[in-house]
């Protein structure tokens, strides 16, 4: 059974359909990369999986359980699904350590000492050991985003959603965030990520999905999508992106 299945999901904003009948399944330990132009619905799909948005139709199942059921406790679902945002969204009034230990302590009932020990281990693993006591505004964008990833990891999610996590970073800092994602994949984490980094997408994804105007137009291995896309729209999108890169 797939870890996550999305069946016929629709989402409307002000009479405009952002997602138009999305079907997608994600196996455990699979890394799925969503590509597509801005406004194609990639971020909205991630927000629906995390229940930050309610779907207007269709079903999303996590481990076979329907999480779009109106009786579902969203807080319970979010305990096993972590999300990292484009704009980091760290809590500015808390130190790095407090940012990371907040959810383990308040949501999962882990004691302070153990939560902090685990947080320090994670910080250590991702090269941020000396930043535990710092406030987010003292960190570079790349460091902030790494802390955001660690914060999501600290709740031991079964599925991680990464929403354009490198888009707000200057090029010199992108690499350090991508490195952390490679490590997650090596550790067997199931992930869905949206990105504009096509090279990285090709390297890390098991499956690439191309979204166009709210429709999942094409799905395949990175090899197939990047070298031999079936859909003309996919081909056009990839050409535009690669042309922009060359400039």
């Amino acid at each position, binding site marked *: 059974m797939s870890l996550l299945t999305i069946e016929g999901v629709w989402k409307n904003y002000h009479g405009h359909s952002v997602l138009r009948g999305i079907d997608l399944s994600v196996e455990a330990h699979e890394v799925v990369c969503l590509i597509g132009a801005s406004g194609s619905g990639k971020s909205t799909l991630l927000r629906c999986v995390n229940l*930050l948005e309610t779907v207007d139709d269709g079903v999303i199942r996590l481990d076979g359980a329907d999480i779009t059921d109106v009786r579902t406790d*969203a807080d319970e679902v*979010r305990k096993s699904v972590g999300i990292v945002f484009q704009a980091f*969204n*760290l*809590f500015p*009034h808390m130190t790095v350590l407090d940012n990371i230990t*907040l959810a383990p302590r*308040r*949501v999962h009932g882990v004691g302070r000492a153990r939560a902090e020990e685990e947080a320090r281990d994670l910080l250590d693993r991702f090269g941020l050991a000396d930043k535990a006591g710092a406030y987010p505004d003292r960190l570079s964008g790349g460091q902030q985003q790494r802390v955001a990833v660690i914060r999501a990891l600290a709740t031991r999610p079964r599925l991680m959603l990464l929403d354009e996590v490198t888009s707000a970073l200057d090029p010199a800092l992108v690499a350090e965030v991508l490195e952390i994602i490679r490590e997650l994949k090596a550790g067997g984490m199931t992930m869905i990520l949206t990105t504009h980094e096509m090279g990285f997408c090709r390297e890390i994804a098991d499956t690439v999905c191309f979204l166009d105007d709210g429709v999942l137009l094409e799905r395949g291995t990175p090899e197939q999508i990047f070298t031999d896309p079936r859909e003309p729209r996919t081909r056009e999108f990839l050409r535009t992106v690669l042309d922009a890169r060359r400039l």
Partner: protein
Amino acid sequence: MSERTWVKSERQVQRERVRRNRAVRSGTVATVSTIAFLGVLAAVVTGSPGWPRVRETFFDAEAFARAWPDVLAGFWTNVQIFLIAEPIILVLGLFVALARNLRAPAFFPLRALAVAYTDVFRGVPTILVILLVGFGIPALGLQGAPTDEITLGVVALTLSYGAYVAEVFRAGIDSVHPSQRAAARSLGLSHGQTMRHVVLPQAWRRVVPPLLNDFVSLQKDTALVSTIGVVEALRQAQIYAASTFNYTPTLVAALLFIALTIPMARLTDHLAARSQRRRGA
């Protein structure tokens, strides 16, 4: 890195000299213009036809000295009133602001009550609230209802200012970016936990300056409780004025209020400037 020592260039020395001269000139201009302005103002006031009369009734040194102890004693009542009222107002305001943010249907009556409360008490002039509470509650003759004027004054001011402070808190809560809430909820925190650990601590920093501003206003408005018979600074000054036809005691009361509100206003400015700097950082 190679070793380098800085020797100021001739150009830089020249530049600094010009800057210094300019600073001295600015200081001189500011001083001269201030003195000239005050001089003209004094000349206009003291040259007015009614000045001798005004000086006698408002600036009488002897009346000032005579009224000082009693007005000061009365002012202590004002201080007590706002010292008691302020913490209660903070708690009430926060409670009302949080009640307005509750979304669960079971809390609808609470939310409706909070909306009605702010609408009513922000709409009614403070002096009317004081009169209604001050004369209305004792008239009910309820057992255990306060009849002491100071307590009634505190109740009335709390009701009136609680509504303003609730709105300040609500604005502060709304000013925290929705992405902060999304981040907290996505980590599994409940609505209440999100409020307590993420939203309120950030809102609190932003509302301190406007809160202090409301408190400056409250400190002045403690004089309004004189209307229900509390003998505080204003009433004490009026008693003197009525018996001697000299209004200098009112000036005493005014100076006492200023002595309290100006430091408060400076503190507000200071905190506002500090939060401005922090946001810029």
